[in-house]
C-alpha cells in the first residue's frame, strides 16, 4: 500500500494534532501517524502556558534564550492559543481563559495549580480560601480523597455519593446515563449545605462533560467545578477526543496504533516512512515531515545508560551531560537537567544537527523546552505545533 501526502506528521499528541489542523486549514493533504493515544490523555486538560507571574506571555521574555518559545514569539503564541480555543469551541468543548492571564485551579491535594486556559467545567475552580466550597466525593473512589482538600480549606465541607463503581472512567461513564444523572442531581438537591460552590472530581462524563456540567449547575443553582484527578484523567481524554474529531472533520488521515518500521531517505530529504502492521506494511510518502513524538514519556526520546536517542529518524539529540547529572537529588526541585535533552532546531524548526531539509520538529521533543520546570507543556506544544506547520506549509 502506498499513500502520498503533502505533509506527514509523526506523533498524535497536542503539537502533532495542532500542526495537522493548521496545515489542513491551508488546504494541504495531511496524515498523522501515531503509535497510540498521546500523553495529553494523562493531563488535567488545562493548557499551561507558563506558570510564572500573572501574565504568562509576558513571562516568556525572561526564559533562557534557547527556549523554543522564543522561536515562536509572543503574538504567534497568542494566535495559536486563540486557534486552539476556536477549535475546541467548534467541537462543543469550549475552553475559557485569556492567554495573558494565569489562573489557579484547585488540585486533588488541595493545592493550587497555575494554568492559563481551562475547560468550561473548571471555569469556577479557584483557590479563594474565603469562599465556601462543598466537595462531592464518591464512595471508595480510589483516586480522590476529599480530606486532602478540606484540611487545607477550613471553609470547606464534603459529602459522599455512592455511584456503585470506584474508578474515574467508571464513574464518568455513569454520568452519561440520564437516570443516573437525575438521581445524582436530586441527591445533591437534598443536601443541606452552606452557600457557596460545589466541587467534584473530574468525572462528569467521558466526552459529554459540558451537558452534564450545565445540568448539574442548573439543578443545584450554584457554581460547580471539576477538580483534575490522577490518570486516567477525564479532562485529558476529552481534550484528546476533541482534537481528534477536529482532525477528522478537516479530512486529515489518521494512522493510529502504528509505529514507524523504516525510513526512506534520499540525499537531504525524507521520502517516505513505512508503518508497522500485522500482515502488510503501509508506505506513507510525504513532501514534508513533522516530528512531534514528544519527549521520554511518549517515547520520542529514549535514554540508555549513557546517552539519549531520537527514536524515529535517529536525529542527533542534545544531551545535557553525563548520567549522574541528569537528575537533582530533590524530587520536588523541578528542573532536572535531563529535561533539556532533545532536538535543537533553527528558526524554521529544522534540526541544526542533522541536515534534512524537509523535516520539521515541534512539541516537547525540542531541546531546552523544560516543560516541567516552566509548566509550559500544552502551551508550548500548541505554539510550536502551529509554528512548525506554518514553517513547512509555505514550502509544500
Amino acid at each position, binding site marked *: 500500500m502506498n499513500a502520498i501526502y503533502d505533509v506527514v506528521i509523526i506523533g498524535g499528541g497536542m503539537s502533532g494534532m495542532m500542526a495537522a489542523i493548521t496545515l489542513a486549514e491551508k488546504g494541504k493533504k495531511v496524515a498523522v501517524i501515531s503509535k497510540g493515544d498521546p500523553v495529553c490523555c494523562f493531563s488535567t486538560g488545562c493548557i499551561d502556558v507558563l506558570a510564572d507571574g500573572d501574565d504568562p506571555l509576558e513571562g516568556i521574555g525572561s526564559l533562557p534564550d534557547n527556549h523554543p518559545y522564543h522561536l515562536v514569539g509572543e503574538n504567534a503564541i497568542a494566535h495559536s492559543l486563540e486557534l486552539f480555543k476556536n477549535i475546541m469551541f467548534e467541537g462543543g468543548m469550549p475552553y475559557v481563559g485569556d492567554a495573558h492571564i494565569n489562573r489557579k485551579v484547585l*488540585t486533588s491535594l488541595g493545592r493550587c495549580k497555575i494554568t492559563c486556559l481551562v475547560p468550561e467545567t473548571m471555569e469556577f475552580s479557584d483557590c479563594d480560601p474565603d469562599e465556601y466550597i462543598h466537595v462531592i466525593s464518591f464512595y471508595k473512589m480510589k483516586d480522590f480523597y476529599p480530606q486532602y482538600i478540606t484540611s487545607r480549606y477550613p471553609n470547606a465541607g464534603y459529602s459522599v455519593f455512592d455511584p456503585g463503581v470506584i474508578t474515574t472512567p467508571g464513574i464518568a461513564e455513569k454520568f452519561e446515563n440520564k437516570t443516573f444523572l437525575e438521581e445524582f442531581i436530586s441527591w445533591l438537591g437534598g443536601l443541606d449545605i452552606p452557600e457557596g460552590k460545589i466541587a467534584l472530581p473530574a468525572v462528569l462524563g467521558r466526552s459529554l462533560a459540558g451537558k452534564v456540567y450545565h445540568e448539574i449547575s442548573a439543578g443545584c443553582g450554584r457554581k460547580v467545578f471539576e477538580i483534575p484527578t490522577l490518570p486516567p484523567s477525564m479532562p485529558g481524554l476529552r481534550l484528546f477526543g476533541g482534537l481528534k474529531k477536529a482532525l477528522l472533520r478537516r479530512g486529515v488521515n489518521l494512522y493510529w496504533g502504528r509505529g514507524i518500521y523504516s525510513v526512506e531517505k534520499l540525499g537531504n530529504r525524507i521520502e517516505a516512512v513505512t508503518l508497522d502492521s500485522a500482515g502488510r506494511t503501509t508506505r506513507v510518502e510525504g513532501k514534508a515531515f513533522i516530528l512531534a513524538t514528544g519527549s521520554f514519556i511518549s517515547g520520542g526520546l529514549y535514554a*540508555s545508560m549513557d546517552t539519549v536517542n531520537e527514536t524515529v529518524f535517529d536525529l542527533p539529540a542534545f544531551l545535557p551531560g553525563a548520567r549522574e547529572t541528569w537528575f537533582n537529588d530533590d524530587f520536588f526541585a523541578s528542573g532536572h537537567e535531563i529535561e533539556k535533552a532533545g532536538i535543537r532546531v533553527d528558526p524554521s524548526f529544522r534540526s541544526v544537527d542533522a541536515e534534512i531539509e524537509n523535516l520539521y520538529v515541534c512539541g516537547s521533543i525540542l531541546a531546552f523546552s523544560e516543560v516541567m520546570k516552566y509548566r509550559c507543556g500544552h502551551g508550548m506544544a500548541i505554539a510550536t505545533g502551529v509554528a512548525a506547520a506554518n514553517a513547512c506549509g509555505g514550502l509544500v
Partner: protein
Amino acid sequence: MIRTDVIIVGGGSTGCGIARDLALRGIPHCLIEKGDFAAGATGACHGLLHSGGRYVVNDPEAAAECIAENRILRKIGRKCVEQTGGLFVRLPGDSKRFRDLFLKGCEEIGIATEELSPSRALDLVPKLNPSLEEAIRVPDCSIDPFRLCMLNITSSQKRGGQILTHHRVIEIIREHGRCVGVKAREEATSEVKEIRGKIIINATGAWGDQVARLAGGSVPITLSKGSLVVTNHRITNMVINRLRPSSDGDIVVPNEAVCLAGTTSMTVTDPDRIGVDPAEVDIIATQVQQMLPDFGTTRLIRTYAGVRGLLKADGENGRAISRGFRIIDHQDGLFTIMGGKLTTYRLMAEKMTDSVMAVFGLKTKCRTAELPLEGQEELSGYPLSSRLKTLEGIVCECELVTADTVERVAGQIGTRHIGDIQHRTRLGMGPCQGGFCTYRALGIMQEMGKMTPEDSMRVLGEFLQRRFKGIKPALWGDQLREEQLVEYIYLGILNMEQEQ
C-alpha cells in the same frame, strides 16, 4: 513504666529472632525498634538464604553455620522461604583452581553440590550466558526478610512479648554501675517511655556502637555498605552466583515478582547517611551482565543500600572480614550481638538467649530449630498467588493490593506509617514504586482516622523524596519514562510543592 526481664534493642532479624527464642523459653521481654521491623541491613539485603557456598573457600566456619541454618529454615519457615536452588556459574577466564577449592570445601562441610554441563544449566536458567564453562548447583534459597521478622515477632506477641516499633532508644539508664533500663521516644508523638529490665541486648547491627555508647561502652565495628538493584521482573528463577572469590555484583536472587542483584562493598562511617552511587549501579550492571546478558536491557526499578555491621579487624577490607558473629558481654547488664548474616539469624538468637539463660541460672532448652514459625497461615495473603484471587478495589495495580487489604492491615497494626503497610502488603513495590498507590493508601488511612490529612501530606512528601533517592541512581530507559510520569502527576497535576 514498663517492667520486663530482657530488653532487646533492634528489630532486625537478630532482635526478632531473640524475641521469639525468649518467648519460647518463657522469658518476659520487650523489643524496641526505631523504625519498622527489618528497617536496617535485614530489609536491605539480598534476601538470600545462603547454602554456604559463598563462604566455603575463605570462611568455612561461616559456611558451615549457613548450611546448618539453611536446612533449619527450609523446615521451619516454608511460607517465607522459596526453595529456588542456586547455581554457581563459572565463566570463561574464571579460575578452575577456585572451582576445585569450592567443591572440596562443600564436600568437607556437607553442602550438597551437583556439577552441571552448560546445556543442563541453560535448561534450568535459559538467560544464563551461553558461553558459560559449567555451573554447580547448591541449595541456595530466596527468603523474605520482612515476613521472617514478622513471623518471629508473632511468637513473641502470642506469649506476651511487648513490641515497640517506631521507638528510638535515647538513653540507657544506669544505676550502681549497671544498665537497668532504657528511655525510648516514640517517633510520632515524641512521648518518652521508660522500660526497666535486668538485661539489655543491643542487636542494632550497624548502629551497635552508637547504642553501646549510650551506656558508656563501645564495640569494635566496621561499617560496610552494600548496594543492590531491583529488576522489574524475574530474569532467573534460581539464585545465580559467580564461581569466583566474592566480589561486586556477583549474586542475583529471585524474590516474588522481581530479582535483586548486587552487591557492592564500601566502608562507611555513618549508617544513617548512605545512598547508592550511580557508579555502583554501573558496576553491578556490568558484572551481572556477564552472567545474565539480558540484564543490560532489563528495566531496573529501584536501588537500595544497607550497612553491614561487621566485626572489626584492622587492615582487612569489607569482603575479607568474617561473616561470623560475636556476643560481647559488657559486664554491666548490657550485651551486644554483632556480625553474622540473615541466614544465621536463628543461631545468633539461640546463642544470645543461651547467654541470657546462663545469667538467670535457667536451663530451658532452645526450641527455635524444631518448631515451625508461627503465623505463616495468616500471612498467606502475601504471595502473588493469593493476591491474584481478589481483583476488586485494587489500589496498587503493580502488586495487586486491594483497598480492603490496606484497611485491614492498617487496622490490625494500628500504624501511622506508610512503610509499615508497604512491608506487610507489597504495596508500592512494583514498577511505579508507589507513584500512584501511596497517595491512595494515605487517603484511605485518612478516611480511617489513622492519620490527619496534614500528616499524610508530610508523609507523602517524605515518601516521594525517599523513593526518588532509591530510583535516581538507576534512572534510564523505561524507568525514566515512568519517573517522568510520576513527576508529572505530583508536580504537574497535583502541584505538590515540597512542604517547607
